[in-house]
């Protein structure tokens, strides 16, 4: 279990790009999301899709780096993603996951049932209660027309096919391990920890980059990649890559996937950061962090009305448009208080 990212007076000391961006955007939004944990009732299809996509690809690179054949690794990550996007019933006793680990072949051997058998009762994988769960459930039903389960699987397979002969290689770290799935916690000034998760460190034409996966519904042009400079996530990744590995990381290689109804198209772009840009970003990020921490002490989180309409509009725009007197009621109607985002949690 991860420890809290907040100190004894409630000031956040562990910061990832998500929380820095929230504080950069609007301190009121930061308070609603990071301090109180308000979130939409239904998790964004874009977030779910992007998370499964990035996880599948970084796991693929890990399997290949460990020596697995590329086709076998593709089959493995497709299987994992199909399972991860299937909503299994929860255990009636403990409410835990009904997912029973193991391939059909392993389960068939263990339990003496045929692969594909649907009406076999299984033990709960969480509490162990016998025979309460069935191999049932349903596929993840996305509320977005493009970010669907089928398009997710297609995008993973098409990406691996598209970049099958990719000249960019996973870097091997000094301890011999492949530089994939790298969660970092980097202590900086004033007892602040910068944290995050790097998908993969790659060598491309003799230069080192952090690789990151992005998905979009729009056509990918130069303008698409321009949005990542300046950008806190990309600056933090480059900053962390250089500091943690003590290697001359040039920037971030962005493999962007355009998701459409009948196809997925890929484009590769780069965003570079030099020493001066990184120093400037660091000072600016520390200033943002300092302002957010002071806001906790003062219990004053001012709105930034200039950002309400960015990127199609802030999710809290309607709530913020109401009088503070009734705002809580509107929050309760459209949002739920969920688990507070924890930058210290490894992905």
């Amino acid at each position, binding site marked *: 279990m991860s420890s809290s990212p907040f100190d004894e007076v409630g000031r956040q000391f562990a910061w990832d790009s998500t929380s820095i961006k929230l504080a950069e955007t609007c301190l009121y939004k930061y308070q609603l999301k990071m301090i109180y944990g308000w979130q939409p009732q239904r998790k964004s299809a874009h977030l779910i899709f992007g998370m499964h996509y990035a996880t599948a690809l970084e796991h693929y690179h890990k399997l290949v780096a460990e020596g697995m054949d590329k*086709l076998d690794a*593709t*089959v493995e990550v*497709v*299987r994992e993603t*199909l*399972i991860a996007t*299937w909503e299994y019933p929860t255990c009636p006793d403990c409410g835990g996951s009904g*997912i*029973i680990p*193991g*391939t*059909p*072949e392993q*389960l068939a051997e263990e339990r003496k049932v045929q*692969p*594909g*058998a*649907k009406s076999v009762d299984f033990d709960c994988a969480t509490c162990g209660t016998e025979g309460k769960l069935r*191999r*049932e*459930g349903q*596929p993840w039903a996305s509320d977005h*027309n*493009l970010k669907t*389960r*089928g398009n997710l*699987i*297609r995008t993973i*397979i*098409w990406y691996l*096919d*598209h970049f099958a002969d990719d000249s960019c290689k996973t870097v091997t770290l000094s301890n011999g391990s492949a530089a994939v799935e790298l969660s970092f916690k980097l202590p900086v000034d004033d007892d602040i920890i910068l944290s995050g998760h790097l998908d993969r460190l790659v060598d491309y034409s003799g230069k080192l980059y952090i690789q990151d996966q992005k998905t979009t519904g729009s056509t990918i042009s130069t303008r698409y990649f321009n949005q990542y400079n300046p950008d806190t996530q990309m600056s933090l990744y480059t900053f962390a890559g250089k500091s943690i590995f003590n290697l001359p990381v040039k920037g971030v290689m962005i493999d962007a996937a355009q998701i*459409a*109804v*009948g*196809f997925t198209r890929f484009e590769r772009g780069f965003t570079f950061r030099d020493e001066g840009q990184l120093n400037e970003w660091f000072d600016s990020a520390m200033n943002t962090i300092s302002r957010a921490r002071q806001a906790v002490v003062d219990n004053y989180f001012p709105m930034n009305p200039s950002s309400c309409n960015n990127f199609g509009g802030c999710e809290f725009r309607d709530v913020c448009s109401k009088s503070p007197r009734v705002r809580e009621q509107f929050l309760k109607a459209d949002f739920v208080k969920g688990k507070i985002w924890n930058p210290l949690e490894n992905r």
Partner: protein
Amino acid sequence: MTDIAELFARDPLSLTNEDVRTIVEEMRKSRQQFTLGNAKAGSTKPKTEKQKLMSDLASKLDISI
């Protein structure tokens, strides 16, 4: 339901390695078709009344538009 749609609709824990390989192969084939220009991109826009009328008519006459 097509073979691949049937595989997608099944509990993934019951899929064999062969089943998952079939999904991978089918998806690769669809990419090849798309790369060759034989697959349509598709559209999320709902058809207009005129387009609906035309496609109804085309299906009755067994022609493609």
